[in-house]
């Protein structure tokens, strides 16, 4: 079978972004071991979930002794952003069997979305978008798993006295600042963060879910105050 040129272009398009993928995936592997998972559990989670931020969230909640259902719900909330990616890429990933759509969807990541969409919007000529996305997403997936594996192997060398659990909020902080794009998103973050501090005493970490909803409401409200700016986004 001849290799599609778009597949190769997708791989090439994703190459530069691996600089960001490798350390983050390694951190997720080190983090998994630091909270007590063994190598197979760390890799099992990495393959089954394949969403770094939500995996780190689960680890942080594990160290806090949160209930199972709160871990699941919070991880889902963190991953709700994938619906936006999925809805945006959907027109490009059509005329495929359900199984192939499922495979492409499983490999969807922040980076695969970013690389593919920016290429699709910049390319004038007819290309097979599905193969480009597949190339980019597959390279990112393989790189992620290999790096996570390296992290899980290295993780046992990191002593607990280093306080590695502090790396969780630090990584969320970097991701949070990437999500701050305008006044409404800042309002969402400030409201979510301050509510979480005030609601810290609520049982079973439910303050986290409450804070997220209030933050979303605040962002929505601030945005609706200036409807004429919506077109600029």
């Amino acid at each position, binding site marked *: 079978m001849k290799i599609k040129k778009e597949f190769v272009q997708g791989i090439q398009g994703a190459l530069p972004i691996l600089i960001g993928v490798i350390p983050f995936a390694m951190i997720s592997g080190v983090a998994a071991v630091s909270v007590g998972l063994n190598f197979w559990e760390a890799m099992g989670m990495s393959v089954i979930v394949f969403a770094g931020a939500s995996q780190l969230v689960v680890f942080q909640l594990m160290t806090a002794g949160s209930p199972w259902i709160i871990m699941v719900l919070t991880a889902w909330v963190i991953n709700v952003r994938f619906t936006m990616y999925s809805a945006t890429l959907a027109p490009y990933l059509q005329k495929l069997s359900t199984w192939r759509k499922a495979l492409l969807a499983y490999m969807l990541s922040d980076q695969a979305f970013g690389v593919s969409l920016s290429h699709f919007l910049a390319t004038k000529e007819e290309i097979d978008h599905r193969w480009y996305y597949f190339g980019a997403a597959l390279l990112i997936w393989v790189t992620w798993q290999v790096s996570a594996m390296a992290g899980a192997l290295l993780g046992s060398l990191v002593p607990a006295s280093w306080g590695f659990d502090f790396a969780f909020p630090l990584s969320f*902080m970097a991701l949070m600042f990437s999500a701050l794009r305008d006044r409404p998103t800042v309002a969402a973050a400030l409201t979510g963060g301050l509510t979480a501090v005030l609601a810290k005493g609520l049982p079973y970490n439910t303050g986290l879910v409450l804070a997220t909803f209030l933050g979303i409401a605040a962002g929505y409200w601030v945005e609706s105050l200036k409807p004429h700016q919506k077109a600029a986004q």
Partner: protein
Amino acid sequence: MSKISLWLLFLAVGAGTFTLRFLFIYLFGKIEMPEWLRRALRFVPAAALAALVFPALTHPSGHLDLSLQNFRLLAGLGGAVVAWRTRNVLLTILIGMAILWTLEAVFGV
């Protein structure tokens, strides 16, 4: 946490995450995401991540601590500056951890 509930946790998080990834690719042409939902979803990362970060800094050992002895709050503020300027996960972790270790080594008991 037992081994069974650990693997059930992976499966539950994974199944939900897959559904979120798959839903609109699968449903394309059949149903579209309503505009109000698209607008609301835009705020999820900022709100949810802030809700994770703030209490981790203000409640390092379970109770509110806004004193200068709260090294995680100080290191977190340092990390916030790095995150704000660079938006780089690795750099934020490295500098934030370095500040925390320095504070603990110099002022710790």
